[in-house]
Structure formats: structure tokens, C-alpha cells
């Protein structure tokens, strides 16, 4: 707004709504109010103990002074960091539908390699959304007409021909809470973030991973990627390839390769293909104690 990218006619401050609680659900899940601050969610005991991946993703995002104010609902709905979107004078289909995409042949080192279209290649910037996608969270909304429960993977839309539409919220519809279902797999979970500097930077690649091993074989695995997709990217192909396999570098590399086979890199961001594969392997190796670094 301050840079003239968006000019809303009306702003409503929703901060006084009673939506800031972080509750443990009886079966072991979480209900996170849309206005809960990122810093409060990151520290909540139920999150730290049962969903470490969510806590870690929050703490690796933005900086403490921002997390103390920023809300969970706002984090999911934050706009892309594509510099052409934010520079109100460049062509950008997301900002001005039909005007073109300056990033396609521009400086696109930070842009997406998965889920792209010829209309938009911007990455979704959120870290915690990646963890929530891995955990099958559900976004609860309230609109003028009714309440909805939207599985988080459906909450984020691929750009396709309509990059201006990023989520299915209707006019007047608010996120009220994010629910995370109980899963034993979440206890052994991790969020790794790779970026140009050690702190206070968006991800070039990030991985949310969780795994449950039974008798040496992978019984359940969750993998999602940040920094590479036009939406927080659930790595379903890699997951499918891993279930039932023996945990180890070979099966991890095979799975990572399968996920990234669909990548459509551009010259400046081609490095992300290998970086993402290595990040997946490192996350899984760390979780299964094959290697901690």
C-alpha cells in the first residue's frame, strides 16, 4: 500500500476480534486462531512438543520484531515478494491482469520452478504455510453467508491463467482459524531453510519434513517445499516413492529426483533444482539420524 501497489478503498482493522488463541485439541491436534501472533504460536507448548516443524518454520521466518506483530492469517495471505509485483511500474499479471510478466525473462533468481505458468512464476513467500501444508492443516473461514473448512492445499491456488487470484476467499470472508490434525508422524519433524544470509531472509529453498519409521522401513512421510513453488509445495511424488522403502540416502535421493523431475527452471533459478533435491535429502537424513550435517 505504501508503495502504491495496492489501493484498497476501505481498510478494516480486525485485530480486536477474539481470534488469537492457540488451543490443543483433545485428540492431539491444534486449533490456531487467525489472529494468533507468529511469535506466540512458535512458543506454544503444544506446537513445540507435538509439531516442531511448525514452530521451527515460524522462528525461521521474518524477524522477532515482525513475528511479534504478524498474525497467522496474515502470514498465509501475504502477497508475493516478486520485485516486479512490488514495483508498480513493471508489467505484472498478478497486479494488473493481462499486462504481462516481467519476471519471465527478467531477474528471476528467486522465482519458482514448480507450479509455474506462462502468466506468473512468483514463489509463495510463507514459511509456516509450508509446514502447515505438510501437516494437512485445514483453513476455517467465515463469510457473510456461511462457514467453510478448506484443506490448506486447496487454499493456495496455482497461478494458471489467473495469477491475480491466490486463494479462494470471497469478498467479506475471513480466516478464523487453522486446524492441524493430530498425527504421530509430526513428532519427528523438521523445517530446514536455505537462503542467501543466515537470518532475516526469504527461502531460496526450504523443506518441511516428517517421518515415521517402522521396522527400518518408512511407514509414513510428509514432505513440503518452500521457495520453489508458486504455492507451498506438497511433494506428493516424493512421498509416494518413499513409503515402504528403507530409510537411507539412496531412497531419499530417488524420491527427491522424482519430485523435481517436474521442475521448469529458468536460467537464473536453475540452481534451485539441485538445491531442492539436496535439501530434501538433508532433511530426511537429519530426521533419521543418517547424518546431522
Amino acid at each position: 500500500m505504501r508503495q502504491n501497489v495496492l489501493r484498497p478503498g476501505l481498510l478494516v482493522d480486525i485485530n480486536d476480534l477474539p481470534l488469537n488463541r492457540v488451543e490443543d485439541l483433545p485428540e492431539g491436534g491444534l486449533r490456531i486462531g487467525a489472529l494468533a501472533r507468529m511469535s506466540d504460536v512458535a512458543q506454544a507448548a503444544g506446537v513445540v512438543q507435538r509439531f516442531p516443524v511448525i514452530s521451527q518454520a515460524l522462528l525461521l521466518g521474518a524477524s522477532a520484531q515482525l513475528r511479534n506483530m504478524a498474525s497467522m492469517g496474515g502470514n498465509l495471505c501475504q502477497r508475493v515478494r516478486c520485485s516486479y509485483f512490488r514495483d508498480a511500474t513493471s508489467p505484472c499479471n498478478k497486479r494488473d491482469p493481462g499486462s504481462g510478466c516481467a519476471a519471465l525473462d527478467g531477474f528471476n533468481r528467486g522465482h519458482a520452478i514448480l507450479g509455474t505458468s506462462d502468466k506468473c512464476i512468483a514463489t509463495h513467500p510463507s514459511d509456516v504455510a509450508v509446514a502447515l501444508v505438510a501437516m494437512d492443516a485445514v483453513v476455517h473461514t467465515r463469510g457473510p453467508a456461511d462457514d467453510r473448512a478448506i484443506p490448506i492445499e486447496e487454499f493456495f491456488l496455482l497461478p494458471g491463467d489467473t495469477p491475480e487470484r491466490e486463494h479462494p476467499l470471497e469478498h467479506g470472508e475471513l480466516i478464523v482459524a487453522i486446524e492441524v490434525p493430530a498425527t504421530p508422524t509430526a513428532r519427528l519433524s523438521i523445517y530446514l531453510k536455505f537462503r542467501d544470509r543466515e537470518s532475516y531472509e526469504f527461502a531460496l529453498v526450504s523443506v518441511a519434513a516428517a517421518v515415521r519409521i517402522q521396522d527400518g522401513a518408512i511407514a509414513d512421510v510428509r514432505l513440503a517445499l518452500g521457495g520453489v513453488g508458486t504455492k507451498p509445495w506438497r511433494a506428493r511424488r516424493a512421498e509416494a516413492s518413499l513409503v515402504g522403502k528403507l530409510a537411507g540416502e539412496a531412497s531419499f535421493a530417488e524420491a527427491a529426483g522424482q519430485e523435481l523431475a517436474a521442475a521448469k527452471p529458468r536460467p537464473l533459478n536453475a540452481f534451485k533444482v539441485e538445491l531442492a533435491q539436496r535439501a530434501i535429502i538433508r532433511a530426511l537424513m537429519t530426521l533419521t539420524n543418517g547424518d546431522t550435517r
Partner: protein
Amino acid sequence: MQITMTVNGVSHTRDVEARLLLIHFLRDELRLTGSHWGCDTSNCGACVVWLDETPVKSCTVLAAMADGRRVRTVEDLARGGRLDPVQQGFAECHGLQCGFCTPGMMMTARWLLDHHPDPSVAEIREALSGQLCRCTGYENIVRSVRWASEHEAAQPAGGDGGTGRQAGER
């Protein structure tokens, strides 16, 4: 709209535009120009103040959102004519050059030391990482915070930068 907030222990009531940011309220309405406004993108951190007990970027807060709450700015660090140890640390260790980032750095540093009296260099760097300095290269800022930490450990009574005292007590 009318809002009332307690800034550095003093209650202020003003009629403000709903869209006014806290940083501009502090600087333009209250003339507390210690907090700086350095960017349009919530990147720089020169505007960091405490909202109640928590450091926030005051450019991410509407003045109206601080209605009924307490704000602490860099002007409240020195008390009774004595500099806060964090301020002394910055003076001793050359923690500033142009000084633009300094108020935000100090407010975060004060909060850090109140909660972690003996932070490691890595912890200091992580805590300050939401704030940018164009001059110092950060090295001397980190040293300044360590100086304050060591000074407060040696002289606990003189090291009370805020938590032990009521806001506004001088």
C-alpha cells in the same frame, strides 16, 4: 478517531486519522523523534519500539491499534540523567556511526538483555537480525550489547534498564 495511549509512562489522548502509523504518531504528533522512520517496507527496523512489553516495528502498527496500550521508545532508556547500560555500551564500543539505526537497535537490545542477561554473540545477532545498519558492519553493535551485558552482570543494581522499574518512573 480519538485514541489514548501511554508513551514512556505519560498518557496521551489525540484525535488521529485511522490510517496513521504508530511511527508517525510518535514522531509527528508527540514529537518523539528518537524513533526513526527508515523505509516503506518494514525492512529496516529503525522504528522499533516496545508495544506493552514487546519490541515491534512501529511502522507495522496503526496508531489506533495501540489505543489503550503502553509504548516505550528510545527516549525512555536514559533515566534520572543516567544512560542505560545499552546506551553506555554503544558509546564505549563505537556501536554507531550515523546513528540512524541506533534507536531501534537499542530497544531490541534492551529487551534481549531483560530476558537473556548473558546472550552469546550468535543470540545477539539473531535478535538484532530484523534491523539493518548501513554503517557499522554490525561488529561493534554486537560488542556494545556484550559490553552492556557484562556491565550489568558486574553491577546488577545499576543495570536495571526497565523491567524492575515502573514505566515512567524516573
